[in-house]
């Protein structure tokens, strides 16, 4: 099980690439510009169910997108939860 960390917007090349690397059971954590994905519940990573997708709350709130994520019922973790995810996953890969 791998933790994939995406730091760029859902329209970026990196966002398309991480989708090719994700396996069933993996977790995709969206940080920095990737939290823009909260705006679009139709984004392909939200509509699949083989891997888990989470938004980093700190970055979401900084960008003023916290309420929108709630409205779309998207799951978030805080910085402590980010560390917990790295504890649970031996392997992590960052996409930027």
């Amino acid at each position: 099980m791998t933790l994939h960390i995406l730091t760029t917007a859902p329209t970026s090349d990196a966002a398309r690439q991480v989708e090719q690397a994700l396996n069933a059971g993996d977790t995709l954590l969206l940080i920095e510009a990737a939290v823009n994905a909260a705006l679009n519940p139709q984004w392909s990573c939200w509509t699949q169910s083989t891997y888990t997708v989470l938004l980093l709350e700190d970055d979401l709130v900084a960008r003023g997108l916290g309420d929108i994520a709630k409205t779309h019922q998207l799951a978030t973790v805080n910085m402590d939860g980010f560390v917990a995810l790295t504890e649970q996953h031996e392997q992590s890969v960052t996409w930027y």
Partner: protein
Amino acid sequence: MDYGLLVMGAPYSDPAPHSALRFAEAVLARGHRLAGVFFYHDGVHNASSLMTPPQDELNLREAWKALHERHDVPLDVCIAAALRRGIVNEAEAARHGHSAYNLEAPFELTGLGQLLTLQQRCDRFITFAS
């Protein structure tokens, strides 16, 4: 657990080092050990002692330095990436005929081998780049 971080973005220009610093604090707060931070690519600019942000903004070099002082975290900077980008220590400045330098302890110039050693040695290795 032992954590190693790879930071590949410059302060202010890139969110990566700001994320890395917050993550580092959270790692330590959860009782883990931070075995080292390696600065590569534009991340070498984190080490610049000439960094002069406005007074109401955090100086990222000072923040990394404080992390080192409180938790003894090695701060390694890739020498090849640093020299190209104008980040030099006293020895390299002398060797290349520069009259000034902008990297000093606790930051250390080192080779890429150090990055691989850190990755191998740590239980967890996390990259910050944007």
